[in-house]
């Protein structure tokens, strides 16, 4: 394990940024975001960014391909957004786990080459949590926020940043940083995590066995009742992966791009025959069934949620996966 005095953090960032683009969580607490590092930029006070680290690998809008029509000829023009090597620092354990989930979707056959390129180009430097929020419940999914994964895991105390390379990419990165010296992080104080109010989220009944029972569960109506059908929860979620493919006619050519979609939207997976989930109830159910039931049922019981708590903070009407899980869990246990 390596260390670097906190006072040298700027130098460390500068050194990383000299080789490739570096993103760090910065900005005011309520609008924190992963931003390209610049001289003088400080880490945010917020535990987590508003948008997750997912954005750097699976951006909200991404060009796919262009078409040009001349007479009766259609020309296909490659138009990928260029992807270059980058490092993202300060990813929390929850966001880091989301890449396991996203990888299983995007890297299985057929491979999503747009995502894959970014995954290959990106080095993830995680940062262990010391002061969780009341909305955190990553531990419910077996995540240890004090020992995050990633290419490089980091710990920070008042004096030092400790770094541990977990992968070859991580090793390479650390080897290029001259200000690092050897040193081990002190053992993490985990007591605060035991006090987290949501740590015992009942998840036993989810995962596929009770799929139809849960699907038909009558309390969905009450849960979905006041859902506004906005996409706030989906767009701040580190694991939501649905997108739509659209085209934009510039007059000269057609630009095909993809952008995030939300199962909460009334036109999600709209087909010529109509909307398969005609009311908000079905759409709402889809989102939570996907995270808690469908995904684990096809991925060895792994949940599609990492407990980052963003949706708890951002839902306009404070309806969220915890309330859903508790309502469903309580009835079926």
């Amino acid at each position, binding site marked *: 394990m390596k260390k670097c005095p906190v006072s040298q953090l700027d130098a460390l960032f500068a050194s990383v940024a000299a080789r490739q683009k570096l993103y760090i969580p910065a900005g005011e607490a309520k609008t924190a975001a992963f931003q390209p590092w610049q001289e003088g930029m400080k880490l945010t006070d917020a535990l987590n960014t508003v948008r997750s680290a997912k954005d750097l690998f699976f951006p909200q809008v991404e060009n796919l391909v262009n078409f040009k*029509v001349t*007479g009766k000829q259609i020309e296909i023009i490659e138009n990928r957004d260029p992807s270059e090597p980058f490092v993202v620092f300060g990813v929390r354990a929850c966001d880091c786990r989301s890449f396991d989930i996203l990888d299983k979707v995007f890297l299985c056959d057929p491979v999503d080459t747009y995502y894959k390129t970014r995954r290959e180009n990106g080095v993830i430097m995680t940062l262990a949590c010391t002061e969780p929020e009341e909305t955190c419940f990553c531990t419910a999914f077996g995540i240890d926020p004090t020992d995050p994964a990633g290419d490089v895991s980091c710990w920070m105390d008042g004096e030092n940043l400790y770094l541990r390379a977990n992968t070859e990419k991580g090793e390479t990165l650390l080897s290029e940083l001259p200000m690092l010296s050897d040193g081990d992080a002190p053992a993490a104080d985990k007591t605060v995590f035991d006090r987290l109010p949501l740590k015992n989220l009942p998840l036993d009944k989810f995962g596929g066995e009770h799929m139809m029972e849960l699907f038909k569960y009558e309390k969905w109506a009450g849960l979905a009742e006041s859902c506004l059908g906005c996409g706030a929860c989906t767009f701040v979620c580190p694991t939501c992966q649905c997108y739509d493919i659209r085209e934009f006619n510039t*007059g*000269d050519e057609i630009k095909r791009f993809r952008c995030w979609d939300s199962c909460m939207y009334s036109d999600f997976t709209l087909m010529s025959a109509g*909307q398969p989930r*005609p*009311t908000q109830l079905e759409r709402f159910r889809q989102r939570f069934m996907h995270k808690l039931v469908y995904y684990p049922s096809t991925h060895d019981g792994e949940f599609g949620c990492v407990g980052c708590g963003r949706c708890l903070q951002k839902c306009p009407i404070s309806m969220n996966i915890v309330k859903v899980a508790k309502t469903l869990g309580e009835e079926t246990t």
Partner: protein
Amino acid sequence: MQKIGVFVCWCGSNIAATVDVQAVSDALAKEPGVVFSTNYQYMCSQAGQDMIQDTIKEYGLTGVVVCSCSPRMHEATFRKTCEKAGLNPYMVEIANIREQCSWIHKDKETGTEKAIILGRAAIAKVHLNAPLTAGQSPVTKRALVIGGGIAGIQTALDIAEAGFPVDIVETKPTIGGKMTQIDKTFPTLDCAACILTPKMVDAAQNENINILSYSEVESVKGFVGNFTVTIRRKARYVDETKCTGCGLCTEKCPQKKVPNEFNLGLDNRRAIYIPFAQAVPKVATIDPNYCTMLKTGKCGVCSKVCTAGAIDYKQQDELIEREYGAIVAATGFNPISMDKFDEFAYSQSPDVVTSLEFERLMNAAGPTGGTLLRPSDGTHPHTLVFVQCVGSRCDGGEKGKPYCSKICCMYTAKHAMLTREKYPDTDVYVFYIDVRTPGKNFDEFYRRAVEEYGVHYIKGMVGKVVPENGKLKVQASDLLGGQQLHIDADMVVLAAAIEPDKSARPLATMLTASMDTNDFFTEAHPKLRPVESPTAGVFLSGACQGPKDIPDTVAQAGAAAAKVIGLLSKDQLTCNPCVANSNELMCNGCSACEKVCPYGAITYIDKDFRGPNRTTLRRRVAQVNPAVCQGCGACTVACPSGAMDLKGFSNAQIMAEVDAICK
């Protein structure tokens, strides 16, 4: 995908001189959907039209773009051309490459480039055009004439003669209008009453004419062919059906001090009155502002003397609703108020009168029995000064009117001439800016006044009139003589400008007919459609459209009648198909569109829609009456959801044009 044909017109050299028409048709041939593109010397010629028709048939065109002059010029022509070839006329778009391109650019390269872009925009639009079919609406075969002056009477008579029923609504107790107050008419000097009253009687006796006197239009709904008009029949406190017009009541009424409006307040009438002897209908009317009985409940003399039992103090205003196919505005004019012209001492001396008052002073039925006497002392005036253009031709001032009132020169000549004829001992001066006499026998008439009757015409304006010792001291300039004049006059007559009647503005709002800044009704076209208002089904007769003398008024009244007859003789009207339509699936029922619709074309219904999971949802949705909608598009922007769109100018079509132009 449409199959579009592009036809580029040279317009001789009008377009071809600054636009390379070959380059344009070549460039447009490459646009998506274009299957045929050509250019030709005169597209609007028979040969050009034939070419379009042949191409439509040969290539099975579904859309046509003509790059030519303004659509205001030939859009209708080319639509008809295409219709004859079996193409829906609304599948035609015009690219205006003459007025908005070749004529304003000198450089051929620039002009060609722009013409191509305009052509592309038209092609982009036509891609989204949909065939439109004009709807039909029935025509109510009855006309309404608002105003019962000579204009209204003539229009009504002409319409009635053609066999259609007409209602005349007149706000006064009698029809006849201003002409009843005039003594003699220029240039023939025949008696106005002698030519007018027979027409009034004709109107009253014509089976097709229904006179609603002492009535006002309260509201107008509907549209061409289908107007519904609410008319307020004001309470005259006399039963029209019983009153015989004997006039006994008007003699016995003890309230004698009511200014007589017929004589412009130069004498008095009673509280119950018949405006003048030849009034039509000849029915008494009680003036509620003066009648003691109506004000205090004590009197009842008229009721006692009326043998017909026609007096009814309890009569109320009555609202009647009628249907019409056409409406004619004939609301006439009034002389402007002299309040702002105190330099002429109108308010200071009763001997300063307006021309219309002078008319009454000369009239045998007037307050002086036709003898010209000074209102102040009843003496015979010896020196008279006529001032022309009082309030006419004032540039931009708040005081007067910017326009020429047209009739003043002639009636002043008439007054001067009549005065000199009847009273050769008088000196008559006329001050003028210009004397305007364009009309048959008008200039001859004016010259007679000067040459035969010795009227002193002086070019120049009167600066001031000061009453002094029973005389009116007139200070004026003689522009030709280059001197200041001081005349001690006995009377001064002011040729007051005329303005539209005050009722015209609210009426225009009800009719949604437009007006100019002077409150004259606007014609649909100043030259080509002078008697139609831009609002379909509304026609203009007489001075409400602009200052007019009697011959012009009668001519225009007849013309308006001809237009009405043309309309009423149709059984069905074809509607403009470029109307708004509401997509009920997106309509919120919020009423924003209804509020901005100037025609009341939008109504709401509650309608059941299929909801998710086999449910039924009842929603309030807008409905557009295509016969009423005029296609302005105000609703389309007021609608936040975009449920309201306009056929022929849809959101998608306009945006396609924008895209093509900005590309």
